[in-house]
């Protein structure tokens, strides 16, 4: 079965977690990647992180005793989901460009 589309938030969270980040770091990183367009809100991020851990697409790392902030990182299955999604998005972009003549 082909994979269903990821939400924009999930796509950017997975993309950000190629290196370990805590919640606030993810918000900042997603903001920078999208040039300020995507502003993840705390509640939405919290729900998404919990679902992603449950799915096994990201791991929660043991809490850093100094900062007491929980960090997350992408897993191998998360990375493969992200790559599949990238292929799906490329198809959309390619078709869009082809049929709209790049305008």
């Amino acid at each position, binding site marked *: 079965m082909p994979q269903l589309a990821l939400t924009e938030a999930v796509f950017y969270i997975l993309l950000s977690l190629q290196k370990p980040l805590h919640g*606030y770091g993810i918000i900042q990183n997603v903001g920078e990647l999208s040039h300020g367009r*995507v502003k993840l*809100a705390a509640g939405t991020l*919290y729900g998404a992180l919990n679902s992603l851990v449950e799915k096994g697409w990201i791991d929660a790392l043991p809490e850093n005793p100094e900062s007491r902030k929980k960090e997350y990182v992408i897993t191998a299955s998360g990375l493969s989901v992200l790559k599949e999604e990238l292929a799906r998005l490329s198809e959309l972009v390619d078709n869009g460009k082809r049929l709209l003549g790049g305008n």
Partner: protein
Amino acid sequence: MRRVVHKLFFIWQLEKEQAWVNEMASHGYSLEHAGRLTFEFDETEPGKYIYKEIFLKGWGEGAENIKYFKFLEEMGIKVVCYINYPGTCWVYLRALKEDYPDGIELYSDIDSKITYQKVMAWYMLLVIVLTLAAGSLNLWISLYSRNYVFPLNFICAVFLLSLCAGAVVAEINNLVKLSRLKKERKLHE
């Protein structure tokens, strides 16, 4: 110096209460504790904090909510206090205005807004059912007891049924919002 204000807000006046708490903060009074009828403020720099009030499933001291509160604190959002109600809690959050100049927004996509609106809708339904049942019972007792000297049950019935009517109005608002969000979700995330 601490200033205690007594004020009554009903359960469907969440937005009104939040606006009032924020107005107090803009005048230099930061909310430090809230009870069902009392609000305690400390004098602070005007406009330093911004407040947000939310409903959550379960009590404030529940394990899931404690985890969520800790996560919010990492985001610079502090839990000032919460009030437990059956199966839910009403939470007062605050953050520095310089960190959240546009206000504290907890949900940035339609799905999480829908989930939140559903919690509100279910809770309001519970309020409607309970106030309607208790109000009708009191009305029934007052009609049959024919106590005209001290019509306590009648007063209770009027109070409960007015609460129920208010909750119905709030529930209609909730359902309208929910249906608008669901319609939007068919096109956008």
